[in-house]
């Protein structure tokens, strides 16, 4: 039975007909004890990472490392997490400033980009290691566009701010593509050294209609 108000169908066939918002929270993973990886695999643990949405958005809230040595990184899978080794070509640039106001710059980061690399893509860290003092962390977001396409490569764009272990603020912007026409159906996050000590990882889907 449809629900109709003032000649407008509000709901029908078990779903709302009116818009309830275009950004849908799919999954939250909260790390509260040391973890080597955090994975979002389509079809596992209520994760949706397929053709349901044209754009996926990961949010990262206060990712805290277990050591002053490394940064957060991502890799992607085309076989629901059996292998995280998709070839990627990317750009990576950074802006940093220390709390003492003696060292500031904006630079391209050749050590953080990839040229058909199948290893992890750095999202934070690299020349700037994430700080692991109790109040230090990194927060940011990562967009993944049309991962289920079997026609196009899969573009991604990320933006983070982090506390560096030497008491710098460090902004990092990464963008590129997974150079595959296979559907990407899983993403995995890890530290380039040590574990993820704590943090909140969220996955959203952005509706196209």
């Amino acid at each position, binding site marked *: *039975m*449809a*629900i109709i108000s003032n000649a407008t169908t509000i*709901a*029908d*066939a*078990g*779903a*709302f007909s009116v*818009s*309830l*918002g*275009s*950004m*849908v*929270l799919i999954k939250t993973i909260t790390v509260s004890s040391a973890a080597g990886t955090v994975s979002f695999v389509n079809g596992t643990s209520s994760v949706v990472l397929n053709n349901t949405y044209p754009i996926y958005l990961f*949010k990262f*809230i*206060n990712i*805290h490392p277990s050591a002053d040595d490394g940064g957060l990184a991502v890799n992607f899978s085309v076989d629901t997490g059996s292998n995280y080794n998709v070839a990627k070509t990317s750009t990576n640039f950074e*802006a*940093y*400033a*220390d*709390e*003492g*106001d003696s060292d*500031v*710059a*904006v630079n391209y980061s050749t050590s953080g980009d990839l040229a058909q690399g199948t290893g992890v893509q750095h999202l934070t860290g690299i020349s700037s290691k994430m700080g692991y003092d*109790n*109040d*230090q*962390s*990194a*927060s*940011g*977001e990562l967009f993944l566009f049309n991962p289920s396409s079997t026609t196009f490569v899969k573009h991604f764009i990320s*933006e*983070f*701010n*982090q*506390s560096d272990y030497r*008491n*710098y*603020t*460090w*902004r990092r912007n990464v963008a590129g593509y997974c150079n595959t026409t296979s559907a990407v159906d899983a993403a995995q996050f890890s530290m380039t050294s040590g574990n993820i000590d704590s943090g*909140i990882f*969220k996955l*959203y889907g952005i509706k196209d209609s």
Partner: protein
Amino acid sequence: MGVISNGTTLLDAGAIDSGVPTGAMVLIDTVTVTNAGNITFDGSLATGFSSAYKEYIFKLIDIHPAATGADYTFQVGTSSDTDFDQTITSTHFRAFHNEAGNTTSLAYSASHDLAQSTSAQILFNGVGAENDESCVGTLHIFDPTSTTFVKHFIFSGTQYQQSDYAIAHHVAGYFNTTTALDRITFFFSSGNQAGTIKMYGIK
């Protein structure tokens, strides 16, 4: 009484059922001013920060200064320190291009970042005040009520500068405090402002 359609509960107990996917980006408040010193979200005129959301997004829409050449800035405060003077360390880089087409740049802007300063953070510099001149941008603030971590922020925006430049600003950093933030204010370094700021919470 619940509202059930085709076997699916849509409404119950005075709210949309928890099983119905709803928008995760929630418009919390909109403030539009025509001639005001500050736009402030502090729980008095508009909603301030709470632990309900782990991220807040502010959309700055056609912010227009009363006086030409002023810098647009923001600062935050806490329930115990309401003076909008938290310690900030930040980066700031800009890309600019003038209408004459003979000046371009992409560079770090050392005069607009902060190093353990309690000054307001500059988002736009030298904004034009002619009728069609304004600035727009998006500011993310992560987990402002945390009592464990510093609070990161990331901003990107673009402006019409007083000497007829387009300037794209990229600002990021952290409020170096483990005290929960509960308020934020936006203002020009001199003179009043017109414009709209929308505040969203991300579930």
